[in-house]
C-alpha cells in the first residue's frame, strides 16, 4: 500500500468516524480529542480502530490504541508505521 499523506489519513479517518458514529467530517480536525471533543465512547473507538487498520493497512495493537487520544495521534501513528 502506498504511503498516505497527512491529509489523506485525515480524510480517511473522518470518513470512518462519520460512517461509524455519525459525526460530520468537518468536525474531525487534527487537534480534536476523541473522548472529550468528539464524545466517542471506548467501544466505538475499537470499531474505528478496526476500520482504520483495514483502510490504512497497519496493525493497531490494543496497547497502542490506548495512547491514541487525538486525531493527530492517529495520523502520526499511521504515518510512522507506513514509513
Amino acid at each position, binding site marked *: 500500500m502506498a504511503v498516505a499523506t497527512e491529509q489523506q489519513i485525515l480524510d480517511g479517518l473522518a470518513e470512518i468516524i462519520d460512517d*461509524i458514529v455519525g459525526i460530520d467530517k468537518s468536525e474531525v480536525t487534527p487537534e480534536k480529542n476523541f473522548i472529550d471533543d468528539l464524545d466517542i465512547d471506548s467501544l466505538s473507538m475499537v470499531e474505528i480502530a478496526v476500520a482504520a487498520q483495514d483502510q490504512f493497512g497497519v496493525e493497531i495493537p490494543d496497547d497502542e490504541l490506548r495512547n491514541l487520544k487525538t486525531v493527530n495521534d492517529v495520523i502520526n501513528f499511521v504515518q510512522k508505521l507506513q514509513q
Partner: protein
Amino acid sequence: MSKSQTTVVVTGLGATTPLGGDVASTWSALLAGESGVRALEWEGVEELPVRFAAQLAVDPSEVMPRQQLRRLDRNQAIALIAAHEAWADAGFAPPAKKGRAAKAESQADPEGFRVDGDRLGVVVSSGIGGLHTALDSYDVFKEKGWSRVSPFTVPMLMPNGASGHVGIEFGAMAGSHALVSACASSGEAVGYAIDMIRTGRADVVICGGTEACIHPLQMASFGAMRAMSTRNEEPRRASRPYDKNRDGFVLGEGAAVMILESEEHARARGAKVHAIAAGCGYSGDAFDIVLPDPSGGGQAKAMLRALDNAGLEPADIVHINAHATSTPAGDVAELNSIKAALGEEVSAKVTVTGTKSMTGHLLGGAGALESVITILTLRDGLVPPTANLEDLDDEVDLDIVRGEPRKLPDGPAAALNNSFGFGGHNVSVVFQRAL
C-alpha cells in the same frame, strides 16, 4: 390492597407495530380489523415450515440514523422509537442530551416539563433479547474471526439492553429493570412499574415491551414445536383466535411503551390521563415448561389477584383483551379460566377480543402492546374486533367481539389484559377508565 395506595395513571402511549409506526395508525388499523401479517421474502424461505410473519409496518431504518442503528439490536431500536412517542405524548420535554449529559440536563427546564431523573424509572422487557445480533455476530466470527465481531455485540444481545438504552436516553436514575418471562414479560413490566410508583421509588416510570426475533431460526424452532400456524397460502387469515380452523400462532415483532405516573405528579403538571393503571396480578402454573395447566387454575388466580390488587370486584370488569394466540388448546382454556375467575354471570356480560389476530404474537412485546390497546379501548369506548373469526369454535360460549368494533357503555369501566408465557408465567393487568 390498602385503600390508601397511590393511584397510578397512564399519561403517555407509544408503539411501533406490524399495523403502523405509531399508536394512531396502529389503533385505526385495529378498529378496521386489518391484518399486519405478510409473506416473508427471504432467500431460502421455501425450506421453512412457516413462511409468513407480522413484520413491522415501518422499519426502524426509516426513522433512525444508520450510525445509531448499528449499535442497537432491532428490539432495542424499536423500544427507543416507541419510548420517544410515549414521552412526547405525555408532554415531557425531549431529552436534549444523551447519557451522562442528560443527568445534568434534568435540573434545567428550558421548555416543557422536565422530570427529576432520580424519580424516573424504566421497566422495559423483551422475552428473547437480541437474537438477530447473537446469530449475525456468530456468522461474522466464523467467517472473519473474533477481531471483526462488533464490540457492541454483548450490549446488543443482552435482554436488558432495551431497558438500559431507554434509561440512558431519558436520564432515568430511579432504576432500570427488565423482567423476562417469555410472552408474559411486558405484562409483568407494567405490573412492576405500578409497584415502583406505589412503593415510592419513582413518580414516573417508562414501561413496556419489545420483541424483534423474526429470524429463520425462530421460524424453525417454533415450527419444530408445531406451535405456529402453517397457513402459508393465506398469511393474512392465519391468526384466527376462537375460529374452528385455527392452527397456531403467528410470530410478530414490535414495541409498545407507556408512561405511568402517580396521579399527584400528573395533576401537578396538568397532564392528560389516558386511563388508570389500577393493578396487576401474577401466578405461576408450576405445571409444564410450555403447556398451560389445563385446569386453568393458574390463569384464573392471576386475574383474581389483579382484581384484588386494584381493589375491584369481578362485576367491575366490562372487557378483556385476551392472550388468545390462536392455538387450538390455549384459546378455549383461557375462556374457561375467565369463567372460573369472574363467575358465569359476569363472564357472560364481558366483551372479549383477541387482537393478535391482527398484530401477530409479539412474545415479550405482547403484554405491553395489548395494554396500550386495552387503554385505548377504555378511553375511546370501542373494542377492536377479533379478525378472521369466521366460524366460531363450538366450545366458545363468551361474547367474542368480531366483524365490527363494539361500543362500550359510558361511565365507570375496568378491563383486564391477560398474558401467559412459556414457563407457566401468568399475568393479568387491570386498567380503569379515567372519568
